[in-house]
Each structure stands twice: as structure tokens, then as C-alpha cells.
């Protein structure tokens, strides 16, 4: 049985998804053409259920890429049950999506999430009445606490078995008449079968001028197109408003009516969290807090990482000489073994100590609801580089990993904004590059030097943004962004999220690290590395770096952190300062941060912005890296 989670943004779909997928189930990202959905399989009543987490959608008439994909998935894949996840404290608005989902005539369950939040806000919902009006089961849930999840899925399962469909509510009489007439035409021409949707749904979408359905249609049948036009004009004349406004007002009124009949308002309980915005979104205090939060955040990550890195690194590097005592260090076997150990050490001692606290902290900030606030604060600044506030979200995610950052550019409406944001996001030091900055620069030189790199990085991004938006002038549509209520993050949910993201490192990157360091050992054993280093010598000598660094640069394209681990291995010591000057360390780091995005990033760029623009990005970042690193060499 296939179950899909559908709901508006910030309704808590992913929390529900994670509470089932959690640590146990295998979560695979299966790529659609442009979107990867989260998919998991789990067992209930001895049955294997398949659960899909679709991107947040405000409405089924949409043009934002992520929303479009969510709808396409719902129409194209035979989903057995839809779970409509609703933020109970935003019931009236959420019902507008519910009404549209009902028009699809797929068995459905309503999940009233965050019911405790609604309670606190003084919104009491008559669940039985709501269920009766829509003829759909309604399950109250507190997803962060795991309450009601079991009942939700067992209800969903029952609905899937029964294949029971909810009620479709009627609009005003005159609108309903128009819909009926158009539906009859559609039925006659059998168009809705092609789309695999009910006639009524298609008729409404046509009346709403839905781009997806209209565009497909224009090049096919002129006759029905004329009919649609006729009915659209009819609505327009009678109501004095564009037809899409007529339909959305109808839906809005229906939702408000339902809302008013099932909700009784009581006095809200004020909580400290309600006053948080007085500081965090304050015109002055807001910016001070923003700076402070990120300063403390990175400081903490560095402190935690450092405490763990030092002893672990010492431990691993004390093992290798011990092995050298029992196996001859000139043998192939010793090369392979020391390669494997260094790969293992790189993961445990250098990357994980910084990666885990960073991803965990990011998850906490995300769950708290701070990210949209940053978008609000930064909007005016981002306008200066030709973007708007929402672009900050991919940028912040970029400090975690560039791949999800580029995927997140889908929340931007204009293609130009997506392109510029994607290019800039590749330059943001992701967690892998952060480990280089922390473990190399902050660790061997000073935390101040690390901060300088972050500042240099920001300046370069701002200038690049200015250049790119000059080259591609366009009036950006401006920001429209929901600022959800704060939620006290749940430790369990944040840990689950961190784990999901760490998995990628542990199961994909780490084996690559170990393989990489083994290959480097072999190259070294067969003296092949000198050949590669020789090939790169023009570049390394321009940057004033040791010749052995050449090989490590190739590895950096696979994974950014690889180049640092390879560097340590190539130099033959974990004590980098003994063989490289501080200038060389800085130059190396600056080069690694900016040059060519890693393979995973190139792949996602290719898919999102196309081959030409990806090649442009590669060339652009490579040239930029050479220039910046050369400057660093002579200036630092």
C-alpha cells in the first residue's frame, strides 16, 4: 500500500515521516526528474507500507517547482491513501488545500498536527464534527512527541483497504453550474482520463487558468479551449473578478464556514516563546542576535570538534608506527594497511567531530523556525545583490551541504534567481570545507585566521552576486514567505534529522575516504604520484605550495574533505605546520574552498541548472580559486 504525506509547508510532514523512517527503516532518496522525495517502507499489521514525503504545498494550483512536483507525483503515481497533514493552529487556511485534495477523490485521512499548540492558542477543534462534514477520518497528532502517530497510520491503512472517498463540498450555485457544464464537456472528450483526474477537478483547474493543465492543452484541441474561455468569461462577468479569484474565494468561504462551525475560541495561554520575535525580528536587536547566534554556533562547533580531534588524531597516528614494527614499511601490504588506517582516522578523528555538532545545531535552528526569520532580516541586503530574502535559506543550508542547498533553490520562483543562488551556494563552505577550515586553519594557525576565511568568503560571494546579477538583469518578483510560529525543538527529532544527514557521510563519503587514501598509498608505492604532482606543478608552483599537494587536488573534486586528509597523508605527518608554512596552509585552504564543486554538487547542478551553466560554474569557480589563492599567497 502506498501512502503519501501531503500538506502545507511547516505543517510537520517531515517530522511524521522521520518518526516512522527514524533510524530503522532504509530511507532512500529516489530521484524524480527534478525532485527527490523521501521514501520509506515500514511494517504495520504485518503489511509493508510505503510512505512518501512530498514537498510542502500551499495549494494544488501552483507554479513553484517543488509544489508542481508534489502534485505531479500525486497524479501520476497510484497513491492508495493521502494523509493531509494540517497545522491545527492554522486550520482555516489549511482547509483550502484539504478541499482541493478531496476533489482528487483519493482515499484520505486528515492529520491534525500540533494539536497541543492549537490548544495553547485557544483554538479548540470539534474533531468529530470536522470528520462528519468532510466524511473523512480526522486524527489528532502531536508529531514531535510521537503522539497519535500509530493511530494515524492504522486509520490510513483502514481507509486504503476500504478505498473510501470523502465528500466533495459544493460551491455557490452559479459557480457550481459552470463547473458542471464544463465537466460534461470534459467527460465527452475524455480528457480527464489522460491526466488520471476526476472531471470536476480538471474543470476547476481549467477555470482557475492553471498553467500546467492549460499549457498542455493549448496545442491540442482548440474547440474545448474556446469552451473554457467562454466559461471563464462568464464567471468574470457575473462576479466582476478574474475567474481564478472567483474559485479561490469560493474555496476560502467554504473553509471559513467549516472553520467557524468546528472551532470554538478560548483565551490563549501566552508563552515566553511568543515574545521571542520582539528581539529576534527587531530592526536592531534582530541583527545583533543574528550575528551573536552564528558566532556562538560556529564557536561551539569548533570547541567541541577540537576537544575530540586532538586525542583521536594522536591515537591513530601512534598506531601506524606500531604496525611498522611488525611489517616491513617498504612492502605493498604496509602501504595498503596504513592507507586504510589513515582513511578511517580521517573520518573518525577529523570529519565527524565537526560534522556532528554542526548538523545537530543546524537541525535545532531549523526546527525552532529561525531560518525564515533570517530571510526576513536579510531581504534588504540580498536585494543589493539582485536576489531576495528567500535566497538566504539555500545559503544557510549550504553551510551544511551544497547538494541540499541547490535543491532548496526550488523555493525561488524565478529561474534567474535559482541560477544565481545555485552558483553562489557552491562557493559557501559546506560542512566538509568547514572541517578543513577548522581542522587545518583554526587548529594549526588560529581561530581568527579561520574567521578571516569566512569573511573573505562572504565578501567574494557578495561581489560575485553583484557581477552575476549585473550580467542577468531582471526585476525579482520579491519575497513572499510564511514566518511560522516558533516550536521548541524536540531533541529526538533533531537527532533523527542529524542522523539522516550524517548517514550520507558515513555510508558514502567515508568509504570513499578510505578508498581514496588507499589509492594514494598505492600511487605512492608505485611512484605514480610523482607523475601527477609533476603534471600539477605549474599550478602548485604558482600558488607556492609543496609539490606533493598536486595529487590531493584531484581527490578534492570527489569530496572536499578528502583533499585535506590526502594532504596530511601526502605530507607524511599529521603535524602539518612542521612541513607547511602558515601562508601555504592559508593558500591551500582558500584554493580548496573555492575551486570546482565536488562531484555530488556537479551532478545536482547539472540536473537543476543544465549542462552549460554547470560548466560555466566549474570554470568560474576554478578561475576564481586561482586568483584568490594567488592573492593569498602574496598578501597573507
Amino acid at each position: 500500500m502506498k501512502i503519501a504525506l501531503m500538506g502545507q509547508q511547516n505543517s510537520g510532514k517531515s517530522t511524521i515521516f522521520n518518526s516512522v523512517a527514524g533510524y530503522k527503516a532504509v530511507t532512500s532518496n529516489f530521484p524524480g526528474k527534478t525532485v527527490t522525495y523521501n521514501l520509506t517502507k515500514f511494517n504495520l499489521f504485518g503489511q509493508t507500507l510505503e510512505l512518501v514525503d512530498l514537498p510542502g504545498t500551499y495549494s494544488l494550483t501552483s507554479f513553484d517547482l517543488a509544489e508542481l512536483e508534489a502534485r505531479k507525483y500525486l497524479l501520476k503515481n497510484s497513491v492508495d491513501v493521502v494523509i493531509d497533514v494540517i497545522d491545527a493552529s492554522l486550520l482555516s487556511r489549511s482547509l483550502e488545500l484539504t478541499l482541493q485534495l478531496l476533489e482528487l477523490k483519493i482515499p484520505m485521512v486528515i492529520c491534525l498536527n500540533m494539536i497541543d499548540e492549537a490548544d495553547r492558542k485557544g483554538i479548540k477543534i470539534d474533531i468529530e464534527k470536522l470528520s462528519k462534514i468532510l466524511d473523512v477520518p480526522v486524527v489528532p497528532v502531536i508529531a514531535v512527541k510521537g503522539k497519535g502517530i500509530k493511530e494515524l497510520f492504522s486509520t490510513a491503512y483502514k481507509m486504503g483497504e476500504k478505498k473510501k472517498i470523502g465528500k466533495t463540498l459544493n460551491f455557490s450555485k452559479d459557480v457550481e453550474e459552470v463547473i458542471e457544464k464544463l465537466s460534461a464537456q470534459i467527460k465527452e472528450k475524455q480528457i480527464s482520463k489522460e491526466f488520471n483526474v476526476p472531471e470536476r477537478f480538471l474543470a476547476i483547474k481549467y477555470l482557475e487558468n492553471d498553467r500546467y493543465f492549460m499549457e498542455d492543452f493549448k496545442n491540442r484541441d482548440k474547440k474545448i479551449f474556446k469552451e473554457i474561455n467562454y466559461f471563464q468569461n462568464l464567471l468574470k462577468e457575473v462576479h466582476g473578478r478574474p475567474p481564478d479569484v472567483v474559485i479561490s474565494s469560493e474555496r476560502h468561504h467554504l473553509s471559513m464556514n467549516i472553520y467557524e462551525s468546528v472551532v470554538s475560541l478560548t483565551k490563549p495561554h501566552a508563552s515566553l516563546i511568543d515574545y521571542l520575535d520582539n528581539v529576534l525580528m527587531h530592526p536592531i536587536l534582530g541583527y545583533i542576535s543574528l550575528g551573536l547566534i552564528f558566532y556562538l554556533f560556529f564557536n561551539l562547533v569548533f570547541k567541541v570538534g577540537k576537544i575530540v580531534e586532538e586525542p583521536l588524531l594522536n591515537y591513530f597516528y601512534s598506531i601506524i608506527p606500531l604496525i611498522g614494527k611488525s611489517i616491513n614499511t617498504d612492502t605493498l601490504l604496509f602501504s595498503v594497511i596504513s592507507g586504510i588506517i589513515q582513511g578511517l582516522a580521517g573520518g573518525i578523528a577529523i570529519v565527524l567531530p565537526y560534522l556532528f555538532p554542526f548538523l545537530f545545531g543546524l537541525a535545532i535552528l531549523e526546527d525552532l523556525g529561525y531560518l525564515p526569520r533570517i530571510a526576513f532580516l536579510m531581504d534588504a541586503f540580498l536585494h543589493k545583490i539582485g536576489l531576495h530574502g528567500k535566497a538566504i535559506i539555500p545559503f544557510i543550508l549550504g553551510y551544511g551541504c551544497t547538494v541540499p542547498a541547490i535543491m532548496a533553490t526550488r523555493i525561488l520562483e524565478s529561474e534567474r534567481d535559482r541560477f544565481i543562488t545555485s552558483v553562489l551556494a557552491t562557493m559557501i563552505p559546506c560542512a566538509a570545507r568547514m572541517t578543513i577550515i577548522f581542522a587545518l586553519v583554526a587548529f594549526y594557525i588560529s581561530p581568527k585566521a579561520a574567521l578571516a576565511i569566512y569573511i573573505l568568503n562572504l565578501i567574494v560571494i557578495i561581489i560575485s552576486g553583484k557581477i552575476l546579477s549585473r550580467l542577468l538583469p531582471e526585476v525579482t518578483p520579491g519575497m513572499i514567505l510564511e514566518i511560522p510560529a516558533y516550536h521548541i525543538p524536540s531533541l529526538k527529532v533533531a537527532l533523527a534529522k542529524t542522523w539522516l544527514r550524517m548517514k550520507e557521510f558515513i555510508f558514502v563519503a567515508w568509504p570513499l575516504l578510505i578508498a581514496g587514501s588507499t589509492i594514494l598509498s598505492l600511487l605512492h608505492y608505485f611512484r605514480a604520484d610523482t607523475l601527477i604532482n609533476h603534471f600539477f606543478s605549474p599550478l602548485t608552483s604558482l600558488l607556492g605550495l609543496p609539490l606533493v599537494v598536486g595529487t590531493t587536488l584531484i581527490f578534492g573534486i570527489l569530496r572536499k574533505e578528502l583533499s585535506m586528509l590526502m594532504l596530511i597523508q601526502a605530507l607524511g605527518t599529521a603535524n602539518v605546520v612542521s612541513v607547511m608554512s602558515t601562508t601555504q596552509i592559508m593558500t591551500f585552504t582558500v584554493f580548496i574552498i573555492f575551486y570546482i564543486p565536488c562531484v555530488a554538487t556537479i551532478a545536482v547542478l547539472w540536473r537543476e541548472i543544465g549542462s552549460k551553466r554547470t560548466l560555466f560554474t566549474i570554470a568560474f569557480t576554478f578561475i576564481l580559486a586561482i586568483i584568490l589563492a594567488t592573492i593569498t599567497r602574496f598578501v597573507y
Partner: protein
Amino acid sequence: MITTLDLVKESQKVRVINISGGWGLRQRLGGLGIHFGDEIVIKKSAIMHGPILISVHGNQVALGRGVARKVTVEVG
């Protein structure tokens, strides 16, 4: 008094009377619960011509200045 949303002062209550953007803007705002006739409260206005923060149906939405200019409202 009729004006555009970007010109409304903080903590004032207004009613939407027109959205002068195209189809896309209407759909987007509609999805967030902003329709013709809805009541909106302006909560915050960011510095340097930044966005405004509004409250509509118990929910907060940030709108860029350019977007807010396209929403005609009635004050009072």
C-alpha cells in the same frame, strides 16, 4: 482610506481590496490565506526598505516591499 500595503504603519489593521499582480501573485498570496476582503494586521517593518511582516488568519507572512506595493488595502 485606500492605500497600498507597503505604506501602512505598524500595528494598523487593514482590509484587502485588490491584488494588482498577475495570476501567479494572486495564487501565491491565496495559498498563504490572503484573499480579497481579508483582514490583515501589519506587525513589523524591516529597516532599509526591507520586507513587512503581516498577520493574517492567525498566521505570520513576510512580504517584500515590491509585493506589498501590489496589494491595495483599506485602512480603518
